Structures are given as structure tokens and as C-alpha cells.
């Protein structure tokens, strides 16, 4: 589906947009030459947004083909988006997708995949065996007699399953022990909120660094996620990295993971949490350890200077009442931290690819994109103002 339907037109209560993903994702194990697919499109691409009814000046000046109209997989930088679900039909054939338990980039997910392959194979064999036996039983003219029949019940119904299940339990019990959290290792506190993710990095000996809707992890180092929720139950699920763990108000859960491959992936909320449960995704980027350290240092720095007009409007419309832009606005951290907003790949927790247009649209009517979103709408805000604020935000990287 081309992107042109993102026009902001509203059709009653229906969902007026078609989220489109994949353009900025790729998978470490199958990377091709060319631009590094881990990083989102460069800054110019981000700023050139999909236009509303009123074109945005920067687009006119650049005058290039509308990036966002590109077809799936047509961009040579992102060849893997061409992959469809078809390979998945081979069940476990290593389907390279950004949000799939079949395509692990973490130690735990990989172990579960091995377990799953074993169980699927056994299940297929058992299914075929039972059905073949049932067919045989129905077709046979002369029966086996009550004693033989009782032997079938005893061995196939009683002893056989008991042995198989005991073996499965023995094999799976060690996997139920969670990975040990390394002393002094990186802690990332994640809070699920309706309908976005607050992410706070707590490296040893450094003040915590807050961001939102994107989690970066170093390859090869154990990371502890500390999971909490201030509102309703959510569940953090990064299928390629590890199984899911719930975020429950009043409780603190932990999940220790080790990424094993570089790449840009995707995670979602897996526990129904309200109207926009389906639109509560986030990006997961696994970086080499050094690259990660460099990136974290970059994240810790306050925002650089930015467009004066949008920055003023941001203040005038009261945005710092809920958002922090470190270095610009101390703000109240009710909503997502926007200090490096423009460096993220997506708008509104994985709902739309990052662009000025998408940001502007979200500012003016968040619930049009995300039903039930907590952010108030600014429908009376002139489009120019919204665009200016969006431009300011997108430049924050």
C-alpha cells in the first residue's frame, strides 16, 4: 500500500491511516553492502516528510522524488524489506524478519528457537502417528481383541506420553532459570505507559539518561531490563531477543538479555493495554559494544541549538508541561523525553516513520493516529505552527 493514504483525512471514527513499516529495518545476519541499515534514513530524509495538503518548503527546495512513496523493498539501501511472510511458511526456516521469534538476535530467543524446532518435529511425528493409527483402527476388519486394545491404552495413552513429557520437562527445566544479572552491568529501566515506552539507561557511575520508544543494546554484553508500569499492565516483547515479561503496576520485573547480532529490530507491547495497544511498538537496535558506548555518550549530551521559531512555539504552546528537552527545556517528564527525538526512526511509538509531517500531524491530533493517546490534541494550532514545532523536534538528534 503506497503511503499516500496518510493524508490526515478523517473518515468518521475509522482509522484514517495505514501504518507502514519496514523501510528502515534490516537484519544483521543478512545485511548487504551499502549504507548501514542500522541507522535510520539520514537527516534530510527525515525532514522531508510526507506532505499534508500544504507542501512543506524544504521539500520544494529539494524537489526530489517523495521518499515516502517508495515501494516496499525498492530502496537499495533496505533490500530486506522485500522479504514477505512466504519464507515463514517453512515454519522455522530462519525467516529474517525484524519482529520474529524465528529470527533471533539474542541468546535466549535462540535457545527457545532450538527448543521450538525440537518440539515442532516431535509434535508433527506424533500427530501423523496418532492419525495413522486411528485410520488403521477404523479400517481394520478383524479387531485386536480387548486385551490388545488395553495394551494400546496402557502403552500409547499412559506410558508413552509420560516418558515423553518427563523428557521434555527435564530438558526444559534448566531453561526456566533466568540469566543472572551481571554485577555492575548495564541496567535499562523500561516503563510501559499508555501507549509508549519510557527508557532510562542507568550505566554504572553516570547519572541516568532518559529517552523513549527506542532501546539500544550492546552486542555480547548482558543487559538487565528493569520493568515497571505506572498505569496498566503492559508486556515487553522483543521476539528476536528474548521472551516477554509483563510490566505490572506495583511490581518490578527484571529481564536479563544478551544480544548476539547487530541489527535494527522491533519490539511490541504484548499485553492488551487499551485502545492503541496495537500501536505501542519500539525500535530495538543492537550495536557493537564500542559503538554502543559512543552512542550512549551521545545520548547523554543535551540537545544542540535548533530552529529558533519552533523552539519558541514549543514553549508557547506549553509543551514543556509534559516533555523534557534537555538543554532547552527542563520540563516535566510526563510524556516522552524529546531531547534526541529526531534521532529515532519512528513517530508515536512505532506508528509512522520519522518525518516532520508525521510529527506535525501527531501534535495536532494525537488520537487520530493513536486512539486513546494521553497527549491532548492541539486541533486549533495553525498547521504552520505545528510544522515549525515538528521541524524543531526532528532536528533534535
Amino acid at each position, binding site marked *: 500500500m503506497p503511503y499516500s493514504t496518510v493524508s490526515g483525512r478523517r*473518515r468518521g*471514527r*475509522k*482509522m484514517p*491511516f*495505514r*501504518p507502514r*513499516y519496514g*523501510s528502515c*529495518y534490516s537484519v544483521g545476519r543478512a545485511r548487504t553492502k551499502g549504507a548501514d541499515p542500522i541507522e535510520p534514513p539520514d537527516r534530510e530524509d527525515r525532514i522531508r516528510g510526507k506532505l499534508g495538503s500544504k507542501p512543506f518548503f524544504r521539500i520544494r527546495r529539494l524537489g526530489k522524488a517523495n521518499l515516502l512513496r517508495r515501494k516496499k*523493498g525498492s530502496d537499495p539501501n533496505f533490500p530486506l524489506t522485500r522479504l514477505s*511472510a512466504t519464507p*515463514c*511458511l517453512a515454519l522455522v526456516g530462519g*525467516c529474517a*524478519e*525484524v519482529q520474529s*521469534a524465528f529470527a533471533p538476535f539474542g541468546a535466549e530467543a535462540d535457545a*527457545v528457537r532450538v*527448543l*521450538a524446532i525440537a*518440539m515442532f518435529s516431535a*509434535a508433527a511425528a506424533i*500427530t501423523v502417528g496418532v492419525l495413522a493409527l*486411528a485410520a*488403521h*483402527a*477404523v479400517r481394520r*476388519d478383524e479387531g*485386536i*481383541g*480387548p486385551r490388545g*486394545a*488395553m495394551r494400546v*491404552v496402557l502403552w500409547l*495413552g*499412559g506410558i*508413552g506420553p509420560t516418558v515423553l*513429557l518427563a523428557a*521434555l*520437562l527435564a530438558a*526444559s*527445566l534448566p531453561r*526456566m*532459570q533466568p540469566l543472572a544479572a551481571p554485577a555492575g552491568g548495564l541496567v535499562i529501566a523500561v516503563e510501559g505507559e*499508555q501507549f509508549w515506552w519510557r527508557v532510562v539507561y542507568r550505566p554504572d557511575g553516570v547519572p541516568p539518561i532518559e529517552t523513549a520508544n527506542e532501546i539500544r543494546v550492546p552486542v555480547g554484553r548482558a543487559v538487565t531490563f528493569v520493568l515497571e508500569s505506572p498505569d496498566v499492565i503492559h508486556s515487553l516483547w522483543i521476539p528476536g531477543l528474548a*521472551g*516477554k515479561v509483563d510490566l*505490572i*503496576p*506495583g511490581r518490578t520485573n*527484571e529481564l536479563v538479555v544478551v544480544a548476539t547480532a547487530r541489527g535494527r529490530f522491533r519490539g511490541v507491547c*504484548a499485553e*492488551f493495554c*487499551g485502545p492503541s*495497544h*496495537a500501536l505501542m*511498538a519500539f525500535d530495538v537496535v543492537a550495536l557493537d559494544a564500542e559503538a554502543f558506548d559512543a552512542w550512549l555518550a551521545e545520548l547523554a549530551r543535551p540537545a544542540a541549538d535548533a530552529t529558533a521559531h519552533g523552539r519558541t512555539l514549543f514553549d508557547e504552546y506549553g509543551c514543556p508541561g509534559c516533555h523534557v528537552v534537555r538543554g532547552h527545556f527542563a520540563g516535566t517528564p510526563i510524556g516522552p523525553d524529546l531531547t534526541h527525538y529526531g534521532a529515532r526512526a519512528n513517530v508515536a511509538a*512505532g506508528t509512522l516513520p520519522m518525518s516532520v509531517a508525521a510529527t506535525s500531524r501527531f501534535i495536532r491530533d494525537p488520537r487520530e493516529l493513536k*486512539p486513546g493517546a494521553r497527549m491532548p490534541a492541539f486541533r486549533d494550532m495553525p498547521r504552520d505552527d505545528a510544522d515549525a514545532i515538528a521541524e524543531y523536534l526532528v532536528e533534535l538528534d
Partner: protein
Amino acid sequence: MRAPALPDQDDPGVRAAQEARLRQVWAPPRGIFLRWTDVNNTAVGVWYTLTAVGMLVFAGCLALVVRAQLAFPGNDLVSASTFNQLFTLHGTVMMFLFAVPIFEAVSILLLPQLLGARDLPFPRLSAFGYWSFVIGGVFVAGSIFFDAAPDAGWFMYPPLTTEPALTGIGADIWMLGLSFIEVAAIAAAIELIVGVLKCRPPGMRLNLMPLYAWYVLVVAVMILFAFPPLIAGDVLFELERMLDWPFFDASRGGDPLLWQHLFWIFGHPEVYIIFLPSVALFAMIVPTFARRHLIGYPWIVLAAVGTGFLSFGLWVHHMFTTGLPSISLGFFSAASEAVAIPTAVQIFVFIATLWAGRVVWATPMLYGAGALAIFVVGGLTGVMVAVAPFDWQAHDTYFVVAHLHYVLIGGAVLPLFAGLYYYWPMVTGKKLSDRLGRAAFWLIFVGFNVAFFPMHISGLGGMPRRVFTYPEGIGLDLPNLVSSIGAFVLALGIAVVLVDLAMSPRRARGSRNPWAAGTLEWLARPDEHWGVRSVPLVESRYPLWDQPGFVERHDEGRFLLPDAEEGKRELLISSVLDAKPLLVGRIGGPTVKPMLAAVTLGGVFIFTTFHLWIPAVMSAALALAAILWWLWTETSIVPEKPMKHVGHGVMLPLHSSGPVSPGWWAMVITMTADATALASLVFGYFFYWTVHPEFPPAAAPGLEGPGRFWPMTALVLFALGWAATIAARETNALERVGSARACLVLAAAATVAAGLAVLAGPSSSGLDPTVHVYPAIVWVLAIWIAAHAAIGVVMQVYVLARSAAGRLTPVYDGDLRNVAVYMHFVAFGAALTLALIAFFPERAR
């Protein structure tokens, strides 16, 4: 007393006169309105079944809209809000308004025939259950047409659902509408248990019971223990929503996980409550088509009991992702895998029976084979999700959606269709079309697999359940499109079945036992409402095959109770273990009272949903009046003579009280369910104690405990009320009626005082239930006990009035004995609860 001479059953004239009397006694009421006052199981069972099938079709249509929305990524057929209502209502209706009711409906319809009984012991209770189901069902299901349906998934996890700002009236509709239905479901379970235990024909010892009856017993007992925790949860839930008592609010000491525990202590047995009755249908169908007895009868009975037992120890596997310690994971993983063993035993019993027999192929067997194929896959994916590490990936994804549909459609819907094709001739006298049946089967089977198999892939491929849309290009597009196509093929198959059913009235009647089955239900004649012509003497599990001349002897009234000479509807009540005839029970005929009770009681729940307090209170008063009118005029009627001849020289009493009577059993079973609900609330109390380092919290205004004086005073008063009730029972039996009445007055006074003293505890110490969960749970326990005291008082006054009116005598004292049973349970529950809130845990000083 000497038995009168046997009626001459060889004389066709005598037989015709008997049949005419039976026909008149069991005649259904006629007329557009009056016909709905019928209470006979053959009428209520059919209405119940058809209504439940209607719910299946309704919920299936909701699913089709869901699948249409998900056919393409980013589809905008329905809004997020509508979608969330659709999937919530789909799950809710399928679970609460189809799966459980259809078991009760089919059992109400079949059980008396299977046991050679004329009806169930409490036919008016069946009617009450049915009308409650209709009212509650229409209320819950209809909410979607007003954009007011529940929208948080069928397990309604707080705090999303308890926060009024986040969830609209839908949550109240779910809680109150379904609570009403759950009460009706428990009522039906009680009736089915008593039916199996007390209404068997002479000779049918427990080990000769048809397997369906065994499964009914197991499943109904499961309902008895599974539904009360949910009802207790509903109570806490509604108190939080309506009065802001913070049971699930973490900021005030509550815990959202308590709901998950209470819900899944219900929810997992629920799966087996749905699945086992379908196995029971298999157990009736397979021997018929294998042309032999079922192999391994004791094995399958033990497997059914074992499944039911184990199913109460697995609930935590629905909570593997909530952050449990490894030891819990290991235990519940093991238990969840273990339940596969009795399931495998049951499957192989059927395969072994077919293997040992000479199989005659027919449409019901086709559905049975399809069910087996689908259920085996669902069972195996069930073992997979029992493995905690795998479940962490699969949980809350479409993999689980696929798993549960494989289990429920393979394990419940297809066997039910097998049962439909099998039993339709028994109910209507006409076979369904084999051609349409086969066509429907293949559409359903292929459509089902096309719809649900790809969900295994989309689930592990990254699709969480309950999403109204999904992104394009991450591997979910194709499996979803395929699933949607399959769903419509499946729906087409169901439509063909419905067409087949709709064409049935125009078809000609066939033979009486078209499958040549060997069990008692095939004695039934669709044109007669009396159930059995005479209550047979059973010597085999398959009497129609094994007892020569069985059908003729039955038809000629040569067994027991072949007549209705007093013009009353009568049942043979037998002993629990060896089915010796004990008495002739008289049951009610057509009456509007159960319907009236259901309507007024439904009003209480519906008005409460909309916070219409005055109509709700008025409706409650009317409901109480309707129930009392029903009880007063229609139950425990003093018979015109003490004994009756039922044939073959057997004289049986017409009335009894205590453990011989069905009413006593019903009271014991009801109070077991009630005690389970109280135990669930007590579980909540201990749960909060375990999650809080300091419970009760440090003393502060509104947090002072109930003290010890008032709870202990209440305890003494309860003991007095209980002792006085027992004294009333004993003095009444000794024909000292005056003393008995005086004891009842004393009992009522003590019970009133006990109820007030229970409330005085938390009230005098100023416990504020909105401040913290500790005062809230103490208040709930106190109110629960006080409410039981209030009901006890109504009962004590009722039996006092019955005694005064001459409707309760030293001999006919069933009501008084039942009230004594009630008081046993209440006094015990009060002692436990009051001691708990007074002494545990010791407050730090």
C-alpha cells in the same frame, strides 16, 4: 402396608389408559405465551441448546468482522474501539454464553434420557437457569449494538478495566451480566450433580453409569469449584469500580495479580469444563459405531476424574510472563504437562475401542475423526506452551490464539456437531442429511485449518493477540490474509449445518434408534414427553444390546412407575452408590414463577450496571418475593398419602427429608460452592498478606483493624443461632412443635444480632475501605458473612411460617433440615472468617 396387586400389563387396555394418564400429566402447555412456562427437560433443553447455538453464530459473526479487519495490514474497516469490543465480546460470548451453556443445555436435554428418568430433579431450576441465561446473554451480547460492549479482552485484566476513566460501562456489563449467568450456571451444575447421583434407574450402580453421566458429574463438580472464585473476583472488581475499594490498585496496597489468580483458577478448569463434555459425547458415539462396549471403562472414568482434578493445579501457566520465581515455573510447567497424560488415555481408549470393534462409518464419525485430528494438534501445542521458556515467546500472541482454537474447536465444537448429527434423531425423530453433513464437515475442516494453522506462524512471527492492526512488510501480511480467507470458509461450513437443521422440520420421521445404539437414551420417543414409559431395571452398560426384550418391556410399562394415577409428575429417586429405589419424588409442572424470578433477579444486575439504585433495590425485593412465592407454593408439598406402589410389589414413600432427598443434596452442593467463594475471598486476604511486608499496614486513621470484641461477639451469636436451629430441627422431629417454633424465633434473633455484630467490628473501629486494601478486604469478608446471616434469617422465618401454616410437620420437615445444613456452613464460615480478621496476622505493636 400391603402392596396392591400389580396392574395387568398384558392388557392393552390397561396400558393405553396408563399412557393416556402419563401423556396428560407430562403434556406441555400450549399457546403462544403459555408454552414458555414449560419446565420439562425436553422443552427447556431444546430451547437452551438452540439459544446457545445462536450465541455461537453471533460470536462467530463477530469473529468474521475481526478477521475481515485483519485481512490486510493497516485496514480501516472498523475503528480500534469497535475492534476491541468485537474481540472481547467474541471471546466472552464463546466462553460464557456458548461453551458452558451448551454443555448444560445438552446435559439437561440428554441426562434424564441417559438415566431412564422422566426429568431432572429440579425442572423449575432448569427453567430458571435458562431464562437467566437468556436475559444475561442478551444483555451482554447486545451491548455491542450500543457501542457499550466490554473492550479489554475476555479476561478483563485490571487496572485497565477497573479504572473508570479507561474503560466505560462495558466492564460493568461484563461483570454484572456474566455474574448473573455464572449463578445460573452453578444452579444448573447443582441440578446435574443431583440428577446423576439421585435419579438413576434401579440397578444402575455407579460403575454401570453411561460415561456421559460420569463426565457430567466430573464437569458439574468442576463448575462448582471453578465458578465461585470468579464470582468472588467479580465482587471485588465491582466494588472497586463502583465504590473505589482498591483491591487491584497498587498505589493503595492492591495488586492486579490477585484478579489474574482468581480469574485463572476459574479460567483453566473452564477449558476442561468445555472439553470434557465433548469427550463424553465421543464416549457415547464411539461404542455405537464400533459396535461394541467401550474398552477400558474404569480407565476413562479415572482419566476424566484425573483431568478434572489436575485442571485446578495449572492456572498459573497463564501467568508465566508475570515474573514468577523459577520454582513456580517448574511446578506449574510440570503440572500443565501432566494433564496431557489423562487426555492421551482418553484419546487412546477411543482408538482402541475402534480397533477392537467393527466400525460402521457415519456422519457423526466423520466429525469425530476431524475433531480428533484438530484436537491432537491443539493438545500438542498445549504441551509446548506449558514449557515456560517457549511460553515466554508464545504467550499473548497468535500462537496462543491458534492453540486455543485448535483445542476448543477440535475439542468442543466439532464433537458437538458429531453429537448434533448423532442425537438429532433422538430429539426430533429425523436424521439430518448425510450429504449436507459431509459437505459442511469438509468446509469446516478445511476452513478451520486454513484459518488457524497460519496463526501459529504469525504468532511466533511477531503478532501479539488483540491488535486491531499490524504493520505491513514484517512478515505478517500473508498469514493474516490466509487466515481471513479460511475463517470465511469455516463460516460457510457452519452455515451449511444451519441450513441442514432448518430443513429438518420438512423431512419425514425415521426409525426410533437409527444408529442401533445400546444405551437408554434411545428408549425416548420424540412424540412423547414422559421421557420413559416405565423406569427400567438396568443390568448392563448397554442394556439395549445386552438385556433381551428390553425395549418391549419398557414400552409395555413392565418396569417401575408405569402409571401416573394421581396425576402428578413423578420421578424415581434412588440411592447414590448402588441406585436402590428410595422414594418417588414429585416435581413441578409448567409454571411462570421461575421465569418471573429470573426476570426480577436479572433486573437487579442490569439496574446496578447503570447505577439505577432505586430500581435495583425494588427489583431485588421483587426477586425475593418471586422466589419465596415459588418456594412456598411449589416445593415441599405434603403428599396426600405417605407411600405409593410403583410396580413389582415395590412400595416407596412419596416424601423424605435429609440425605435421602434430592433437596438435601442440592443444599449441601450449593453451600459447597458458596464456601468455595468465601475461600476465594480468604485466599485474597492471605494473598495481600504475602505480597506486603507489613500487613495489616501500620495503624493509621481508617486502618485500625476490626478489633476482637465484635468479631468474637458475632461468633458467639452465630453459634447460638446455629445451635437453636439444630434444636428446632430435633424438637420438631420429636413432635414438640411449640418448642421447635420457639427455637426458630431464638435462632432468627441470634442470627440477626450476629450479622449486626459482624458489621459492628470494622464499623466501630472506623475502617475506611477506600484508603487501603486491608480495610477493603476486611469489609468484604464482614459483609459476606453478614449477608449470609441475612439470608439465614429469611430461611429461619420462612420455615417458621411453614410450620405455622401446617406446611412443615414433624414428618415432612425437609425445609427445616435444609436450613440446618445452611446454618452448618454459615457457622463454620463465620468462625473461620471472624477468627481470621480478629487474630491474623498479629498487628505489630
